[in-house]
């Protein structure tokens, strides 16, 4: 077996009387692409928010590469190597594309505010900028580097979200519906892109997605949840033929049903 990177154990999240996520357990190994799917409102984003520290789980445990990160602050978790994108794009609106990505490198600084203000960290700053430049080139956003982030076309904004997450130098990349709002061709390109950056940056990818073509095309394994509970898991082929999954999807939304 390959090494375990993200281990989720009996994760439960209650909001008052509502159980958004119920006893979810997952294991993600290094270098895998794992998808979490389920109908709208199944608790996928809530699960993401627990892994990234936005919510503290009511019960359960999250372990990143052997370290228990349950209830850690979001910034701590990012520093330990989990980066994310947002379903409803959350770029830094007043900044350029370049500065968006550069800002995400802040957490790897060794300077303090005094050395940074008085430019005693010039070497580090230069390195940050070079790396950002290289990263933008890698994801194909170099030509937009001086544009305002929010003026980019929608697809490019999604790409920028991924680039910004990569800039934090993560071990695990969490993508929250990265293909939302993309056309089929863009979606296909995105799939190839995710695989490419996974190899290039030695990542483990954990994604939520509704586009089944994308999920089935790139995932090594898939977890399916409905009403907060896991109803199936396995390879894309296994999940596609699972009666519980078909029932859950057909009962909710035929368009997104599994072909």
């Amino acid at each position, binding site marked *: 077996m390959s090494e375990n990177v993200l281990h989720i154990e009996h994760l439960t999240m209650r909001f008052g009387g509502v159980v958004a996520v119920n006893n979810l357990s997952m294991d993600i190994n290094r270098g895998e692409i794992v998808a979490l799917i389920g109908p709208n409102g199944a608790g996928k984003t809530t699960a993401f*928010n627990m892994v990234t520290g936005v919510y503290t789980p009511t019960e359960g445990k999250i372990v990143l590469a052997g370290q228990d990160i349950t209830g850690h602050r979001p910034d701590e978790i990012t520093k330990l190597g989990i980066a994310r994108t947002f379903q409803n794009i959350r770029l830094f609106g007043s900044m350029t594309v370049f500065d968006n990505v550069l800002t995400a490198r802040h957490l790897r600084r060794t300077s303090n505010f005094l050395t940074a203000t008085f430019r005693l960290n010039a070497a580090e700053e230069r390195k940050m900028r070079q790396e950002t430049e290289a990263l933008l080139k890698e994801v194909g956003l170099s030509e937009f580097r001086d544009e305002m982030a929010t003026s980019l076309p929608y697809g490019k904004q999604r790409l920028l979200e991924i680039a910004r997450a990569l800039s934090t130098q993560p071990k695990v990349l969490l993508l929250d519906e990265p293909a939302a709002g993309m056309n089929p061709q863009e979606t296909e390109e995105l799939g190839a892109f995710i695989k490419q950056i996974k190899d290039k940056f030695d990542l483990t990818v954990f994604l939520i997605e509704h586009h089944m073509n994308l999920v089935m095309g790139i995932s090594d394994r898939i977890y399916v949840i409905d009403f907060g509970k896991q109803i199936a898991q396995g390879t894309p082929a296994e999940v596609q033929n699972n009666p519980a999954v078909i029932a859950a999807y057909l009962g909710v939304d035929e368009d997104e049903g599994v072909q």
Partner: protein
Amino acid sequence: MWNTVFPYLLSGISVGGQYALIAIGYTMVYGILRLINFAHGDVFMVAGIIMVYMAASGVPLWLCIPLVLVLTALIGFVIERVAYKPLRSAPRMSAMISAIGVSYTLQNLVLYVTGGLNQIYPTIPWISDSVTIFGATTKMVTVITPFLTLILVVALVQLINHTKIGMAMRAVSRDFETSQLMGIKINQVISTTFVIGTFLAGVASILYFTNYTTVIQTSGAMPGLKAFVAAVFGGIGSIPGAVVGAFIIGIAENIIKGLDIILFKAGVISGPMGLATFSDAFTFALLIIILAVKPTGLFGEKITDKV
């Protein structure tokens, strides 16, 4: 001991009632618009100035009082329409800045009109008369304020709970957007809120300035801030909360004013400590404590943020 404390307690209850009437305006506006109406205290002051000028120009007092209340409510209405309505979809900070701008404007206008001099508030018969209760001599206004406050609050609560506009107000304060979709006339509700709030501030100004006898452009700033603190203390958005908070603050502030004497007579201290300096500051200390301990205030509802 009682004889020492009682006069301070009495004026505390009285001032508390006046703060309560101002605080309701803050808490209602905040409940609906999520806006700290920094100009509210200044509207209260302007109500005082209007009274001064109206009485000086020969309008009989019995007519002055209703006119002041109507004019004050009108000012509240106009301020909302001119300074807050255009910013309703802007970031919250913009509306708050606009409120500060209005406060600045009102103060400067009054400074211009009055020349920056203390204006003597007209003496209103009966409520300005001296009375002696339980051995403490005070003005009638001190005695009637708490009762009048309670009557107005009860009337207001009835209005909010049992009339159509009151129901609309509750709906809007719960969910602005949905209420709008449900066909509630938002502008009408907001205007009504401002009118009620400033009307009560007008009542408060009559009571307050009858007691303090002079008005100047900065007269509204401190009572305004304190009333706001009272609203936060009680749980912003909650009318009973604002009233309770206001009484607590009014009493505490007045007790502190007399604390040197009270403690001296109780034998705790042997000389003046100058503690009266902190009568204003205490209000803010209370604010910070409540915000640190229970940010939603005594009676506030917990509002969870959507991520």
